């Protein structure tokens, strides 16, 4: 349904082109939920912006972004608008920043219906109330008349999801939708997102820095580092059969809630961005298995044990760890 092939994106930073995504490949099947996990600078948010072509002025994009066989990068303005309005919906991290504070919740949720579908005002209000009920907001009639500041962060994020659903998109891009929320609220919001996605057979790209959360919400998870994907694997398998050294490191970095470990297996150094990476593997400076070959050339994302891994030494490392 969604295909990204060898996507390179560079942003104009004070006159200099700075790469943020390099050789990014992603595939999303109909009705699938794909998790996009990475630390700061990994380019996960830029991926969403690339798919919706919401990149800052002066950005340079190459490669292919295809949605149902249509080339998003080649779309003309009218076609692009139609794509953004009705095919894809974006749930942002901070609902308070993304929702116009001077509009009532009802206007916000019903906007897509009235403007894009030409639905009458009364009908839009009725459908909006249904949508709010679907995202678990009680007393929808009253909520529609309220302003954003009267709602809590969790409620606003639900309203945002409702507004996205109003356009009946087939693809939802959720960019850290619960990062600003408390843990208990996160569980509720994620639960709603998961249920609605299944009920309506929507595809979803779920972006988060929380690997455990991605594993719980998604069918497959892609781990990003320095502007490209380093490992893709089904969520069921990734936790126990991660193969890329970075993924293994990420899993070891998080303390477990069930038990207490003496030490965490921390990855040394700090996460690098795409523009800081050398000609070789971007992870080479932090990798315990790095060799000269890793510094010389960038590995490709290749199939390994049911997933995709971008590592020169993946087979050796795996055999070594099994022995």
């Amino acid at each position, binding site marked *: 349904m969604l295909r990204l092939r060898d996507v390179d994106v560079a942003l104009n930073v004070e006159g200099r082109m700075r790469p943020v995504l390099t050789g990014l490949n992603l595939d999303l099947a109909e009705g699938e939920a794909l998790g996009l996990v990475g*630390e700061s600078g990994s380019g996960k948010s830029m991926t969403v912006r690339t798919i919706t072509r919401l990149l800052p002025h002066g950005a340079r994009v190459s490669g292919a972004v295809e949605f149902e066989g249509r080339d998003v990068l080649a779309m003309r303005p009218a076609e692009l608008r139609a794509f953004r309005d009705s095919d894809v919906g974006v749930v942002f991290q901070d609902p308070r920043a993304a929702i116009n504070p001077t509009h009532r919740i009802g206007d916000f949720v019903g906007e897509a219906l009235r403007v894009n579908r030409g639905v009458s005002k009364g009908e839009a209000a009725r459908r909006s109330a249904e949508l709010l009920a679907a995202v678990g907001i009680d007393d929808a009639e009253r909520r529609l008349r309220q302003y954003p500041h009267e709602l809590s962060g969790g409620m606003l994020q639900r309203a945002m999801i409702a507004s996205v659903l109003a356009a009946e998109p087939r693809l939802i891009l959720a960019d850290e939708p619960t990062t600003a929320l*408390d*843990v*208990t609220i996160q569980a509720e919001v994620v639960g709603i997102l998961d249920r609605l996605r299944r009920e309506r057979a929507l595809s979803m790209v779920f972006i988060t820095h929380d690997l*455990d959360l991605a594993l719980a919400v998604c069918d497959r998870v892609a781990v990003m580092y320095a502007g490209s994907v380093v490992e893709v694997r089904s969520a069921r398998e990734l936790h126990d059969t991660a193969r890329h050294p970075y993924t293994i490191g990420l899993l070891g970095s998080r303390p477990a*809630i069930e*038990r207490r470990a003496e030490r965490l297996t921390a990855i040394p150094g700090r996460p690098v961005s795409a523009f800081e990476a050398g000609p070789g593997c971007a992870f080479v400076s932090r990798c315990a298995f790095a060799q000269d070959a890793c510094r010389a050339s960038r590995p490709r994302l290749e199939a390994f044990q049911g997933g995709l891994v971008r590592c020169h030494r993946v087979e050796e490392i795996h055999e070594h760890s099994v022995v």
Partner: protein
Amino acid sequence: MSTLSSEPSSEPRTPPIPADNRPAIAVSGLTKDFRVADKHGRRSVFTAVSDVSFTVPAGGSLGLVGESGSGKTTTARMLVGLETPTAGRIEALGHDRSRPARSAAERRRRARELQIVFQDPYTSLDPSQTVRAAVDEVLRAHSGLEGPARAGRLAELLDQVGFDERQASARPRELSGGQRQRVAIARALAADPRVLILDEAVSALDVSIQAQILNLLVDIRTATGIAYLLISHDLAVVRHLCDSVVVLRRGRVVESGDCGAVLDTPADEYTRVLRASVPVPGWRPGSG
């Protein structure tokens, strides 16, 4: 001998217990009211912290857990004297600190009892001070060391948090979030406090950096026997670092006890919801 224990999940790590056995922190009946005005100008009282009591034993580590509005940060600010309690008593190493310090000497003594590391590494350092200057300023005020002795202690502190000579000349702007948080830790340790309050000190960091800082904190505690009061919304981090835990909700204590016991078999309904909301392998959204 005890280090040979093969029990992988042995809960208590045993740092050297200081000779002085007075509790590091003893809080009883702590309450904080804020006067607030709504948009119509009507004044009311908002109780951020209500009748909170807990004890951090000398060399121990306690987690203060809660979501936004739980009063955990207000509690931390009262402990270090940035807010004055409305009611209740705070003692650190047997000294009362419920009221503002009355003299410069008392203020300095309090600084040597309790130090704090804040959440945001981007704003908790003076932007115009180099790493070395920031740590040295505290040493000059508290250590009583002069000349080479102080320089030695400075080098030791910087080394402890993984800074080399060159990096120590950098200003915060040139450092990453993780490095800044290391500086904040070194600066807090420079006063040689008996208790370190960590106010969401690892929450703003990338996962891989968070792990490095958590390891550092474990090492420091093993080496110095300092007591920790960890304030966090992250139950896994609390479990990793703390012996006991206090769960706060809307300014009140809902449950407290041994960290493992509370997280494995929560007694309170809210603690159960909190625990069930944490995504773990096999967790399904909506099941909590």
